[in-house]
């Protein structure tokens, strides 16, 4: 089936070009259109810098937590049978299937001063809404499934042979995980972590609803980009921020491409 896929390739490439390629090119042209110094002064404004800082801080909290929970849940789903397993598995689809706006609104309901969680937390002096804590919570929710969804197929394909072998050789559950299971799924974990990071850096809808959009306090980079463009009509600031975020995402993307290649090679090895 070698030489007659040209029409197919043409259609796919055209589609990608219209939807993804050219817009990205335009973004670069526009952001740097007034020269690099203008771009640089835009992205070093205090508001832009604090948005970048918050985005990185949120990622630094949300990604590790979601990684640990994702790996744990993946082990449950792929290696155990228990009542409620399918429910658990399905809950991990909620953040993908449900609009970020709904997630945001739902979080507001739960953590507002009159919500079940919000009331006691407020009494303890903990403000979730309109604070960085809310941003972290919203981000963790939307980026929840990626580690689990990356790992489970690999765990299922891997089978339990190596783990059982380790067990007959005297290893306990913890040692089996660290010495046998984790090394075997490491590329899938990294792939999931990278996706989680991408989703964390880019999240917009849920954060917008939860954060209250307070400049310098709860503005992540995506919110800053939107706010500059939509509310403050600071077009260059918006484009510049978008380019910075896009470049971060591109780095993430490059890592994803490398990891996917590794993982496919692994699959071939397994077959």
């Amino acid at each position, binding site marked *: 089936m070698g030489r007659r896929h040209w029409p197919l390739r043409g259609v796919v490439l055209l589609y990608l070009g219209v939807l993804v390629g050219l817009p990205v090119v335009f973004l670069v042209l526009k952001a740097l259109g007034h020269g690099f110094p203008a771009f640089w002064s835009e992205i070093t404004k205090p508001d832009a810098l604090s948005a970048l800082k918050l985005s990185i801080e949120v990622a630094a909290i949300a990604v590790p937590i979601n990684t640990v929970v994702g790996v744990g849940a993946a082990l449950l789903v792929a290696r155990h049978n228990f009542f409620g397993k399918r429910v658990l598995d399905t809950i991990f689809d909620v953040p993908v299937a449900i609009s970020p706006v709904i997630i945001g609104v739902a979080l507001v309901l739960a953590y507002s001063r009159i919500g079940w969680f919000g009331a006691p937390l407020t009494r303890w002096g903990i403000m979730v809404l309109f604070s960085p804590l809310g941003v972290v919570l919203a981000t963790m929710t939307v980026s929840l499934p990626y580690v689990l969804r990356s790992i489970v197929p690999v765990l299922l394909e891997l089978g339990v*042979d*190596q783990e*059982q*072998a*380790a*067990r*007959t*050789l*005297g*290893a*306990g559950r913890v*040692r089996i995980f660290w*010495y*046998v299971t984790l*090394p*075997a799924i490491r590329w899938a974990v990294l792939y999931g972590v990278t996706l989680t990071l991408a989703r964390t850096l880019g999240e917009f809808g849920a954060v917008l609803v939860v954060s209250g959009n307070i400049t310098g306090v709860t503005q992540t980079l995506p919110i800053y980009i939107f706010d500059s463009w939509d509310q403050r009509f600071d077009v260059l600031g918006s484009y510049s921020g978008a380019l910075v975020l896009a470049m971060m995402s591109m780095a993430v993307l490059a890592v994803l491409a490398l990891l996917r290649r590794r993982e496919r090679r692994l699959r071939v*090895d397994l077959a």
Partner: protein
Amino acid sequence: MSISLKHLTKHYGSTNAVEDVSAEIVHGSLTAVLGPSGSGKSTLLKLISGLERPDQGSVVIDGEDVTDVDPRHRDIGFCFQHYAPFRHMNVTKNVGFGLKVRKRSPKEIDARVKELLALVKLEHKAKHYPAQLSGGERQRMALARALAIEPRVLLLDEPFGALDAVVRAELRHWVKELHQQIHVTTVLVTHDQQEAMEVADQLIVMRSGRVVQSGDPLALYERPATDFVHEFLGPSTTFAGEVARPHDLELVSVYQGTMKGRITSIVSLGFEAQVTVELSDGTSTWVQLSRNELASMGLRVALLVGVRRRDDVEF
């Protein structure tokens, strides 16, 4: 160490179940569990190892009831059907894994791994990864890894199944020799009767989760308890309405035979030759001869011959 299995029962789904299996495995023996696929033989092995828990019954190793003991504390060496190598560890790390888990000193581990690699003839591959090994080498690595912990019992699941015919024959020989060297009680599972007959000193024949017959391989071959065992343990044909081994029949002159017939084909397979005869009652049978017997008899297709059972069936 001896193993006794007492009324072991394990169900899941319809196949691979084990139904009320009892057996005694003698200390130091090499026992083959033989049966067609789905007969429950691999499940039986997992029950002995503890990787599966029986629904009923118990496993006793060396007088100690281990039914409730976790596999990691049973001191069992288990070789998986596809060897289950740790793919991200080299051969040395694979073989040393059990000792590392047991917190032996690096020096001791090093010495023991060297010794084992010499035993399985893999010294030159010590730093290789499983992906760089051939099937036979992986198998030997898996054996060394299982032997490293000085197990009381060695369990092998279809140890030669995934290998080429030539490598298979070699490894079979080698496993037998190895067993004579180290004399650890060994149970292996196979669906290949030739393999079982050649390697094992005890056979347990299984079918549909139950033990059909067990004992000395040759005794089972000579005196199968059922037609199933008869057909499973070696080539079978029918003669005068009964199941017979083709080498228990002989070709004689037309007048000496119990029945007469016409030779329809002669196939020479090297050492062995197969002569097919269409009998006067309309059935067809075949006789197994050695090449030397065939050479001395001057047979040809279409010849009329007599067929009878040899008198010395028991010897």
